């Protein structure tokens, strides 16, 4: 990290994120393989371990998982790198979403929009379930027990979610899951 701004590098990071923004269908994590191809394999800005750290940290830290993208930028070029990649990944998709929202608002009663809502609701839930399914610890019986208990508690009680997260961290450190 030099004190001087490496503008060509920042522009490259910005452009890379900009290109991938509209490809991030179904969550930012879906562009991870492509970012790895460019940033690690092609440009060698980062090594494998750094790339893995960025994803692990963003998943563990609070906030949206898309923050692994600015973390990658941070590792390459410090704070300016982080901002370049965050802004790049957001501009195209945000512009499109705002336009779509305006359109949806003016045509809220349109039959096509109502059909979209009714048809997509089960698909949306299926996608969300799939995320839980992929994250679930299939190799560990105590882990599955914990995940199942958490799901039940969330469904049936109003226990604070941070309490559950803290319990998970504690059980992990104690070696129970």
């Amino acid at each position: 990290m030099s004190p001087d701004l490496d503008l060509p590098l920042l522009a490259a990071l910005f452009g890379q994120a900009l290109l991938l923004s509209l490809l991030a269908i179904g969550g930012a994590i879906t562009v991870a393989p492509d970012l790895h191809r460019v940033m690690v394999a092609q440009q060698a800005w980062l090594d494998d371990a750094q790339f893995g750290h960025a994803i692990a940290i963003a998943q563990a830290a609070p906030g949206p998982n898309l923050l692994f993208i600015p973390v990658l930028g941070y590792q390459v070029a410090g704070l300016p790198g982080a901002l370049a990649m965050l802004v790049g990944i957001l501009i195209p998709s945000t512009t499109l979403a705002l336009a779509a929202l305006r359109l949806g608002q003016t045509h809220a009663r349109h039959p096509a929009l109502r059909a979209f809502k009714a048809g997509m609701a089960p698909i949306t839930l299926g996608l969300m379930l799939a995320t839980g399914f992929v994250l679930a610890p299939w190799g560990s019986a105590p882990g599955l027990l914990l995940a199942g208990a958490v799901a039940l508690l969330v469904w049936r009680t109003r226990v604070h979610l941070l309490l559950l997260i803290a319990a998970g961290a504690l059980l992990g450190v104690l070696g129970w899951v």
Partner: protein
Amino acid sequence: MSDASPPPGAEPPAAPRSCTQLFLVFTGLALQGFGGVLAVAQRELCERRRWLSAAEFLEMLAFAQVLPGPNVCNLSLAVGQRWFGLRGALAALAGMLALPLLLVLAATAWVIDQAGAAWLQDALRGMGIVAAGLIVGACLKLARPLRESPLGTLGVAGLGGATLIAIALLKLPLGAVLAGLGLPACLWAHRRLRAGRKP
């Protein structure tokens, strides 16, 4: 921005007072979102704040998932825009990102120092397991309004199950799943809605 009078009884009783409140609530829910924000967003927006019903939350989530771009950001834009238009959308998005970004960068600097600490790996693993449970629990809650779906319980279960299998087990790309399942589902819903309107 008070459009379309809501159906009686279906509307949750509360709304955000200002863009500042939107920003703060989204900051708060982002900061609770370890291992993903969706479960927390459902708890906070539907249950604690009562800004959205489960059905409205699902609609906005569907919109966020279909459009390109990070889901949670699109969801923030949709929720914020509902009350305060463009300003609300940007306030919610900024709340979702600003403080978490600073935190995650600080964490990066710290983890780089601690690389390889076994307790840290163990804690992260435990938190990841809980995150899986959180998201399944949120799904169970969001499934409630689907009992009134024009597709029927069986149709909803079939579509949801097929999506789960296609993504989690068959590892099909999302675009293919949305085209292969989402499009037919919308067309089917269109037919059922049209049929339902006639006596």
